[in-house]
C-alpha cells in the first residue's frame, strides 16, 4: 500500500443562504482554494471524487454531471458518493483508495451542500424508508432528542443537561476563532438552558444551524506529498462502518458503528490509548449531546464520563484534549460536506494551518462523522509522520 497525505484544503464560508453563488460555483470556490493551498493548478489533478448528501436537498438528481466542469474534472474521471452525513468523509475515503491503490497520484475530493435551496424538512422526509418510517418522519432534531434522552437516562446523574450546554458554549467560543464558521456569537450555559425547547431535552442552542457551504482537499501520493508540501497530513488510520438503517435497532447512546470504525482506525494507526496518543479531535456534533456520545464511543473517555470531561475543561481549545477547535457542526452544518469539514480541520491542525484556532504542536488528529439516521460512521486519523 502506498502512503497518501492531504497537501491542501479549501473551504467556503458557511452561511444560512449563499444567494451569490449556485451549487457549482460554491463547490468551485472550495475546490480552487484547496488546489491553490496545495500549490497546484487544476491541470495537476488526476481524478476527482465528489461527496454530497441526498439529491433531494437541492432537487438536482445526478448533480455531478453539472458540477464536474466547474471543479476542474473535465477530461478526468469523476465519481460521486452519497452516505448522508458521512458523504464528505466517504468521498475522502474513495480518494484515499484512488491514491494508495496506485491508480492516481493526485486526487481532489470535493463535498458540498446547499440546504437553503429547499425546505429541508420536506426533503428529509423522503430519505426515510417509505414502508415503516416515513409516516413518522420527524426532523433530525427529534431523532437527536430521543438519542439525548437515551444517553442522559443511561448515565444519570453523572451526565446532565448542563453538560450539553457546556459543549454548546465551548464550541461557540471556538467558532469565533474560525473565519468560516456560521454561528460565532458567544453564549452562556444559562442562555443555552433557557433557550426555547427544540425537542425535549434539546434546547434551540443545543442544535446546529442549516448551512450552505463546500469543502475540498487535495490528496497526494507519498513522494509527491513530501516534494510539494512542507508538512503534509498523512493518512495514518481509517475506519468506516454501518449498522441498521432503522433507528430503534441502533444503540443511540453508544452506536456500534462508531465504536467499530474507531477500532479499525486505531488499529491501522497503532493507537492504543486515544486520549494520550491523539492531540485533538473534530467530531460530528450536530447536537450538543452528540459530542459527549462520540467522545465515549470513540474511546476518548469511558461510557458516562464525557460530562465530567467537558466540565473539567479538558476538551476546551486550551485543554489537554481539545475537541472541535473549529466550533464543530454546532456552528455550521452543510450536511453532505460537514464530514469532510471535520477531516479538513483535523488535517489543518496537523499541517499547522488552522490559524487562530490552531492547537499548538499537533502530531495526531482524529476526524469523526455520522450519517444516515446514526447508521454510518467514519473515523480518520491524520499524523505529521508515518
Amino acid at each position: 500500500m502506498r502512503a497518501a497525505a492531504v497537501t491542501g484544503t479549501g473551504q467556503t464560508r458557511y452561511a444560512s443562504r449563499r444567494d451569490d453563488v449556485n451549487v457549482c460555483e460554491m463547490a468551485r470556490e472550495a475546490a480552487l482554494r484547496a488546489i491553490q493551498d496545495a500549490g497546484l493548478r487544476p491541470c495537476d489533478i488526476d481524478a476527482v471524487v465528489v461527496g454530497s448528501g441526498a439529491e433531494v436537498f437541492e432537487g438536482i438528481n445526478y448533480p455531478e454531471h453539472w458540477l464536474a466542469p466547474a471543479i476542474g474534472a473535465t477530461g478526468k474521471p469523476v465519481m460521486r458518493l452519497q452516505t448522508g452525513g458521512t458523504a464528505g468523509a466517504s468521498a475522502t475515503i474513495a480518494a484515499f483508495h484512488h491514491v494508495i491503490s496506485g491508480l492516481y497520484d493526485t486526487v481532489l475530493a470535493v463535498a458540498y451542500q446547499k440546504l437553503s435551496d429547499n425546505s429541508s424538512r420536506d426533503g428529509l422526509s423522503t430519505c426515510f424508508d417509505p414502508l415503516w418510517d416515513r409516516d413518522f418522519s420527524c426532523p433530525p432534531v427529534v431523532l437527536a432528542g430521543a438519542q439525548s434522552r437515551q444517553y442522559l437516562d443511561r448515565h444519570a446523574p453523572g451526565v446532565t443537561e448542563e453538560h450539553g450546554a457546556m459543549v454548546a458554549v465551548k464550541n461557540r467560543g471556538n467558532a469565533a476563532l474560525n473565519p468560516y464558521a456560521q454561528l460565532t456569537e458567544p453564549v452562556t450555559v444559562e442562555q443555552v438552558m433557557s433557550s426555547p425547547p427544540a425537542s425535549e431535552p434539546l434546547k434551540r442552542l443545543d442544535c446546529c444551524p442549516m448551512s450552505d457551504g463546500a469543502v475540498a482537499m487535495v490528496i497526494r501520493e507519498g513522494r509527491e506529498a513530501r516534494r510539494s508540501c512542507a508538512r503534509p497530513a498523512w493518512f495514518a488510520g481509517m475506519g468506516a462502518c454501518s449498522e441498521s438503517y432503522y433507528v430503534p435497532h441502533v444503540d443511540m447512546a453508544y452506536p456500534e458503528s462508531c465504536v467499530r470504525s474507531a477500532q479499525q482506525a486505531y488499529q491501522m494507526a497503532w493507537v492504543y490509548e486515544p486520549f494520550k496518543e491523539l492531540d485533538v479531535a473534530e467530531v460530528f456534533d450536530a447536537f450538543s449531546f452528540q459530542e459527549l456520545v462520540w467522545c465515549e464511543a470513540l474511546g476518548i473517555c469511558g461510557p458516562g464520563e464525557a460530562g465530567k470531561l467537558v466540565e473539567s475543561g479538558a476538551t476546551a481549545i486550551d485543554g489537554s484534549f481539545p475537541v472541535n477547535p473549529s466550533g464543530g457542526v454546532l456552528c455550521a452544518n452543510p450536511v453532505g460536506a460537514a464530514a469532510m469539514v471535520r477531516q479538513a480541520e483535523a488535517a489543518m491542525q496537523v499541517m499547522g494551518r488552522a490559524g487562530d484556532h490552531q492547537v499548538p504542536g499537533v502530531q495526531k488528529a482524529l476526524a469523526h462523522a455520522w450519517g444516515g439516521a446514526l447508521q454510518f460512521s467514519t473515523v480518520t486519523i491524520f499524523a505529521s509522520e508515518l
Partner: protein
Amino acid sequence: MSKGAELAIEPPELTELRVQSISEYSWSTGEVTGSFLGALQKHGKILGAVCSGCGRVAAPPLSYCESCGSGISDYKEVGPRGVVMSWAGAPGDTEGAPLDGPFRFILVRLAGADTEMVHLAPDDERIRIGAAVRPEFRPAPERTGSITDIRWFIPDESGPDPEPGER
C-alpha cells in the same frame, strides 16, 4: 469599471428560480411487510418475524435478520403491550409533521419482540423511558394497510411497567 457598465447591465435582481416538483411513486412492500400490513389492517394484529438463524424476533418484521443476516422462519404475534425505550418531544407545528399540535416521538419494544419500533404518543407526562404503553388502533373501516393504522401508543396502566427487554 464594473462588469457590464458599458452595456448598461444592472446587478441581477433575479437570484432565485422557484420550482415545485411533485412525483408519484408506488412502492412495493414485499411479502413480509405486506403480511404485516395486512394483519394490521384486517385483524388489528402486530406481527414480528422470527429469524431462522438466531431466533431473534423483529417487530416490525423484515425478511432478513439485521443481527445475523439469515432469512426468517415464521411470523409471531407480538404486543400489543410494549415498553417505551426512548422518546423526544416534538412540537408538531412544523410543515409536514405527522400530527397537529405537540406529540411525543417514541421507540417502543412490544412484548415478545427483541427489537423496537418507531411510533408516536400523546404529549403526556406518563410517556417516559420504561413506561408501559399499548397501541390505539384506528376503527377498522378507516384503516388503509399502513403503519398509521395504529394511531399512536397510549399509556397502559393495567399492570406494572415491564422491565426493558422483558419477553
